[in-house]
């Protein structure tokens, strides 16, 4: 079995198996094992990047970044989830039946995301993203509380409209390609589309891109299409929040990037950059302000994800080797850091029995390892050194200010507003006299600290191969 097939088959098979495996222990172990196997397969895929380009599947330098990141976070989230779900089972928030459903859905979601990433067919990619979305909808509602169902419903409805918009965009791309590339599946194959894009009808591509940007942008969580995101993050199980923020948003972003490439290949089409810059800035600033009035800790970090997706989309919108590099780096760092934050937040919420920010306090006093880990992770996401986000923000802001000072000012406004809010909440959560139960945390801190270590190391030194890889992608993105 080739690694490409493996990253699809392993989760799919695991999903089927898990649907029938009763019991917490075996389920969690299989889930973890499958995730590990997927990760190994993804790593084995690295040397193959650029060699796989079939009619349905493709692995190039762009999506390999996403695949590896996806499998890694998927693996650590599975590790975190094992401990987390155990606690949920004991406290009775989840039933064993739910659990089977949960694990199956988890692998199905990984399958959907991996498929979306490696598919060479824009129709197939659309289907895969929708699959991933629907599985997460199911998991968001898994607690069956009214709030969880509400959140899932909101996610479902808004997601469906997004799906529809993205589909229309996909159809339009096909219609634009069909006179050039001929009828049938050929006009949906990504690698062909890119080579023929210059001859497509630009007006058609323009309309298509608007629909694709809004459709997939809904999944990315760009304001004002973000509404599902905070609630879905807040009400679902925390491992799923981590996966949503760390992975699903990236996958949707990947789709946007693919179509951006397509647009860029046609000189007569509207430049996609300004649109992305505008949406990105709007998201970053808007989310920054929204952080202030948050009372739920997970919703807080969900808005922070919106902010960061805004920054990433902005960076890709600006384009150029530095901004693209920064965008990729930021995306990677955000995935690692935000999922780390959710791991920590999950432990906190379990210890304190609440997600209300005001009921949590003095964590560094009562739970030093957890508290300082969360502090480091929040500092990392706030763009403080020596973590990786600092490097990407450095690159984005400096390169933008030299080109478009006004845009940089707006971006920085968003960054500062967000920093103010995060710090405010952080100070309350982590310092001062402890509030709430002080029992020691059950969940493993290993996923949290392994992510932090990676983010820390990346902030100081990026390994050569990763850099070469990022730069290749950055050049590809133009």
């Amino acid at each position, binding site marked *: 079995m080739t690694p490409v097939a493996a990253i699809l088959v392993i989760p799919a098979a695991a999903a089927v198996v898990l649907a029938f495996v009763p019991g917490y222990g075996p389920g969690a172990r299989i889930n973890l094992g499958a995730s590990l196997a997927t990760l190994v397969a993804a790593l084995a895929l690295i040397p193959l990047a650029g060699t796989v380009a079939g009619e349905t599947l493709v692995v190039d330098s762009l999506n390999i970044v996403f695949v590896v990141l996806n499998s890694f976070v998927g693996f650590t989230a599975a590790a975190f989830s094992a401990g987390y779900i155990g606690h949920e089972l004991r406290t009775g928030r989840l039933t064993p039946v739910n659990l089977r459903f949960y694990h199956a859905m988890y692998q199905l979601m990984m399958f959907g995301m991996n498929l979306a990433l490696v598919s060479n067919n824009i129709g197939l990619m659309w289907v895969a993203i929708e699959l991933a979305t629907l599985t997460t909808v199911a998991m968001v509602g898994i607690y069956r509380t009214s709030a969880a169902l509400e959140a899932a*419903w909101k996610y*479902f409805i808004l997601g469906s409209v997004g799906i529809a918009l993205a589909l229309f965009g996909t159809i339009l791309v*096909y219609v634009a390609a069909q006179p050039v590339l001929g009828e049938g599946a050929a006009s949906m194959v990504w690698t062909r589309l890119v080579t023929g894009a210059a001859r497509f009808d630009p007006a058609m591509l323009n309309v298509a891109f608007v629909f694709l940007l809004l459709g997939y942008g809904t999944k990315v969580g760009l304001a004002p299409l973000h509404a599902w995101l905070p*609630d879905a993050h807040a009400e679902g199980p925390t491992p799923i929040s981590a996966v949503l923020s760390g992975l699903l948003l990236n996958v949707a972003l990947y789709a946007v990037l693919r179509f951006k490439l397509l647009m860029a290949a046609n000189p007569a089409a509207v430049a996609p950059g300004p649109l992305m810059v505008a949406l990105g800035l709007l998201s970053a600033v808007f989310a920054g302000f929204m952080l202030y009035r948050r009372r739920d800790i997970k919703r807080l970090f969900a808005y922070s994800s919106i902010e960061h997706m805004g920054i990433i989309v902005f960076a890709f919108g600006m384009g150029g080797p530095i901004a693209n590099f920064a965008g990729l780096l930021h995306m990677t760092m955000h995935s690692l850091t935000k999922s780390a934050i959710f791991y920590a937040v999950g432990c906190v919420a379990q210890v304190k029995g609440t997600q209300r920010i005001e009921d949590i306090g003095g964590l560094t006093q009562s739970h030093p390892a957890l508290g300082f880990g969360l502090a480091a992770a929040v500092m990392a996401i706030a763009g403080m050194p020596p973590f990786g986000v600092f490097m990407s923000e450095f690159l984005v802001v400096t390169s933008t200010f030299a080109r478009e000072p006004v845009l940089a000012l707006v971006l920085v406004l968003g960054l500062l507003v967000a920093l103010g809010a995060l710090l405010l909440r952080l100070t309350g959560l982590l310092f001062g006299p402890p509030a709430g139960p002080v029992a020691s945390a059950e969940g493993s801190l290993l996923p949290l600290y392994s992510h932090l270590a990676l983010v820390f190391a990346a902030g100081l030194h990026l390994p050569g191969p990763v850099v070469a890889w990022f730069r290749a992608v950055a050049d590809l993105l133009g």
Partner: protein
Amino acid sequence: MVSLSYDIAHLLAGGLVLVSFMLLYQDRLYSLLNVFALQAVVLAGAVAWQAHIQGAHHLYVTAAIALAFKAVLVPWALHRIVERLGVHREVETVVRIGPTMLAGMGLVALSVVLMLPLTAAENPLAREDLAFALSVILLGLLMMVTRRNAVSQVVGFMSLENGLVLAATGARGMPLVVEISVAFSVLIALIVIGVFLFRIRERFDTVDVAALDESRGERP
């Protein structure tokens, strides 16, 4: 022959837009559902005609799904929901019908303006089809946005989806159309089930943030 097939396709697609306007015009839920069934029938006709002129026989499946599922099953289910849940029988509007229709006109104009610059080399059928499809999609969205009842919003979404199917079938030789129409039917079924399960009587709003706010204390 080409001109005739073009005219019929054009007529059917235009009919779809017309029915979309009729949907906007309705102020009773039952009549809304009936008009929607009519739209589904027109869509089925349009798809079937496309299947015929493109010689793409799998599209007949799509037409059949449209006919069976959307023209019969879903309207029936929604009828039942309205009865069972004792939903208010009138369409509650946010914006009155007149201005909504005017906005709809604007949306159709927008669609036409957007699709006009397409190069003439393009298949004129596809071009017209796309303009109509875009109109139907936008009108469906408009309906979702300007109507309060959950049922009329579901109808809006399905109307939107009809536009998608029209576009997909109009695109010559597009793969996966059937699969997509099936997937969407499932989606719609889920929504209808959701409406029923969550007992969303009046609008999506009731099963909405209000509960979230209370449980999480987000509301200051």
